[in-house]
């Protein structure tokens, strides 16, 4: 199956193109929307086949010996060989192939992307069914799959960058999917622009790599970098490259300071939030850092920054998540926080643990998002948790699956999130990064707290959506009334309250599958004190072939410490859950009460530490000021001095030459005319018009000739 590797990205692209062409043809030429069954058959089919091909390819890869688990296939030469002068003065032959690489790292990624992506495609059939942009949505979604698969399968930085930009584009398109809504359009633009900042870093890093190593091929770059010393004391070239790469990663993976786009990205349809902004695209930064472990591990300064930013983002986003009232925003901040975990793992040198968290997180975060989508749909497009509550009995499946996802993310033993998060915590502690461990440890408690707050507010307690009215009757909607809800705009108040309803099967089934995944996914990476060897790390070993040897701080194999750590993190997770239970279930605290009792802290958390405002004040308004200044410069100097000045000069010169023309040239002409006039005034008197005066002149002429003749013939 390995030889069909190139088909994996191509299938979604073909699906996207097909849907796009059919859709455009139907809408523009025929004037009707394409058949929905046809659309989702193409889209889901393409992703399903890609998923099966991925599984086949991974199976084939697994059957190879451990050290030979790399498969590369060159589709065509993209940039033909050109000479390139390197920084050390040597000349290299620079060449880029369009080539795909399957190794354990990309295997993990394509599995996650195609599998979770497939489930989300299926889910979207139900969720988006009533939407007027159905075909457009699936075209974008398939295009995203193509871009993401290209990103993870590319065998060099340039192809990675193609995918990198592709997912950015799709993200923009899908965030702004409801482009008729201003906030959605703004969110799309925000995501795009913030990502551009990161992408700039990535491009600079790519250029640096090209001129340093003379190639962009992963294998060649990392092999060359493997011979470089670790820049322990100095800030060298590798540190520069990795810092720029990390800037790119912060943009794509929503880390401080470029995380601001992700919460706003929740404007997009919920499946998009699940697929792009939780499970796959945002992990691209982590994937890239893991992929470049050979570079990062040789730049300890960068590693420290990565770990610091990762853990800071984790706690920062977690605290913001405390009091958000929009269900999707809570999840968005939780995503930012979890991504922080992943970077923390990378930063402390355990790339495998970071990737492990990517993998488990994909399941439970997709699950949570899809669950929240189900809630939102069941609530007739209400996202405010203050208007939910008691949904357990209306949406049992959604409740059950979301509870599993929440338990997983909170780090309850036996579920996926427990293994990965615990691995990170322990590696941070074991690696001697005590402060980082402690902050991450606190974050774990926070995570448990705010996730269970979400559960309690949404599914437990008194229903708040009913206002004062009693639930009149159990009305059972078997399927989502999506379109009509949009028209009427959320929950009707006063008369005709519409009760929440469970979502259709096409949405529930992916939820169940993901719930199962959230439970079992972690068992491939059970800690070594249970399985003797960590299977996950063993599987990924070839990826870290060129990684610099991590300095050992001891206590590495102290299983008892590891078990203690695990106990501690379970404890704090339990504490968080209990706190949430106490506050929101026992004391029945309502979202409105939070503000009253916490005051300033609440304000601070609720308003996201005013980061958006700070960015507005510091960057956006300054940029606008710069723009205004440049505009003023343009207006006053360029337009004023330059254009208008030269205009004035030209006009003055024109006026001058006009004067010259008028008085000198015209003057000369008029002078001639005047002279002709004067002379003719004299000479015209000769022209009497009288025949006899002419005859007289003739006679005078005759006399003259006569005289001349006589004078000559004398």
């Amino acid at each position: 199956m390995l030889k069909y590797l190139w088909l994996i990205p191509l299938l979604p692209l073909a699906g996207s193109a097909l849907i796009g062409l059919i859709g455009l043809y139907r809408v523009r030429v025929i004037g009707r929307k394409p058949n929905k069954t046809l659309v989702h058959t193409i889209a889901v089919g393409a992703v399903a086949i890609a998923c099966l091909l991925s599984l086949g390819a991974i199976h084939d890869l697994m059957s190879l010996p451990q050290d030979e688990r790399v498969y590369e296939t060159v589709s065509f030469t993209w940039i033909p060989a050109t000479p390139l002068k390197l920084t050390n003065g040597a000349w290299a032959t620079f060449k880029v192939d369009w080539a795909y690489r399957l190794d354990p790292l990309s295997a993990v990624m394509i599995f996650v992307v195609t599998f979770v992506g497939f489930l989300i495609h299926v889910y979207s059939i139900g969720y988006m069914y009533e939407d007027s942009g159905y075909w457009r949505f699936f075209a974008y979604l398939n295009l995203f799959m193509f871009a993401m698969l290209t990103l993870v399968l590319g065998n060099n930085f340039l192809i990675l960058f193609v995918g990198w930009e592709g997912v950015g584009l799709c993200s923009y398109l899908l965030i702004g999917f409801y482009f008729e809504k201003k906030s959605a359009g703004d969110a799309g633009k925000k995501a795009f622009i913030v990502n551009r900042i990161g992408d700039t870093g990535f491009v600079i890093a790519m250029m640096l790599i090209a001129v340093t190593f003379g190639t962009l091929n992963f294998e060649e770059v990392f092999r060359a970098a493997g011979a470089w010393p670790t820049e322990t004391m100095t800030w060298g070239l590798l540190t520069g490259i990795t810092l720029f790469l990390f800037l790119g990663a912060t943009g794509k993976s929503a880390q401080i300071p470029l995380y601001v786009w992700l919460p706003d990205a929740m404007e997009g349809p919920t499946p998009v939030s699940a697929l792009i902004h939780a499970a796959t695209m945002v992990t691209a930064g982590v994937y890239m850092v893991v992929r470049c472990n050979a570079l990062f591990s040789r730049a300890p300064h960068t590693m420290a920054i990565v770990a610091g930013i990762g853990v800071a983002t984790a706690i920062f986003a977690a605290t913001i998540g405390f009091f958000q009232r929009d269900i999707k925003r809570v999840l968005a901040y939780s995503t930012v926080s979890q991504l922080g975990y992943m970077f923390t793992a990378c930063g402390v040198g355990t790339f495998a643990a970071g990737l492990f968290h990517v993998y488990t997180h994909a399941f439970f975060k997709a699950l949570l998002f899809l669950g929240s989508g189900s809630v939102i749909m069941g609530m007739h497009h209400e996202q405010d948790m203050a208007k939910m509550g008691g949904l357990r009995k209306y949406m049992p499946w959604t409740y059950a699956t979301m509870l599993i996802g929440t338990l997983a993310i909170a780090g309850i033993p036996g579920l996926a999130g427990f293994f990965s998060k615990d691995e990170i915590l322990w590696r941070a502690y074991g690696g001697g990064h005590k402060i980082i461990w402690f902050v991450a440890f606190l974050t774990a408690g926070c995570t448990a707290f705010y996730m269970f707050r979400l559960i309690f507010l949404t599914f437990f307690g008194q229903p708040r959506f009913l206002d004062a009215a009693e639930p009149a009757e159990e009305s059972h909607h078997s399927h989502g009334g999506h379109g009509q809800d949009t028209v009427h705009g959320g929950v009707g108040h006063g008369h005709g309250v519409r009760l929440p309803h469970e979502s259709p099967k096409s949405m529930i089934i992916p939820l169940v599958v993901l719930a199962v995944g959230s439970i079992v996914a972690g068992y491939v990476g059970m800690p070594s004190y249970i399985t003797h060897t960590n299977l996950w790390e063993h599987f990924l070993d070839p990826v870290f072939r060129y990684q610099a040897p991590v300095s050992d701080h001891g206590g590495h194999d102290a299983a008892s410490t590891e078990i203690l750590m695990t106990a501690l993190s379970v404890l704090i997770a339990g504490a968080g859950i209990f706190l949430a239970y106490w506050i929101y279930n026992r004391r029945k605290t309502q979202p409105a009460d939070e503000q009253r009792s916490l005051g300033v802290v609440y304000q601070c958390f609720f308003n996201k530490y005013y980061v958006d405002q700070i960015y507005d004040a510091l960057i956006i308004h300054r940029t606008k000021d710069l723009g205004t200044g440049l505009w003023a410069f343009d207006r006053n100097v360029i337009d004023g001095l330059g254009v208008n000045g030269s205009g004035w000069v030209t006009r003055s010169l024109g006026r001058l030459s006009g004067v010259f023309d008028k008085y000198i040239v015209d003057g000369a002409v008029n002078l001639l005319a005047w002279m002709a006039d004067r002379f003719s005034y004299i000479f015209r008197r000769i022209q009497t018009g009288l025949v006899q005066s002419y005859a007289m002149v003739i006679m005078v002429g005759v006399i003259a000739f006569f005289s001349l003749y006589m004078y000559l013939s004398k």
Partner: protein
Amino acid sequence: MITTSHYLILSTIILTIGIVGVLTRRNVLIVLMSIELIFNAVNINLVAFSKQLQNTIGQVFVVFVITVAAAEAAVGLGIVIALFRNKEKINLDEIDLLKW
């Protein structure tokens, strides 16, 4: 003895009288008549030289001159009639259509 010079002097006198008539008279008809005098002065010359040179070809030319004079008179008088009909004037110093 009457020599050619006598005829020439006579012809000169008539010519001069004709020129004076052309140049001084206002009436266009009299101007035309003066032109006839000039023609006749020429004719006298031609006949005189014909006589002197014993060659009658000069007299042939007189016939031609008279022919031309007749044509001239016919056209000239036609012009005078047309002029008079249009302008009610036959005085040459009142007719300055040639003026600019």
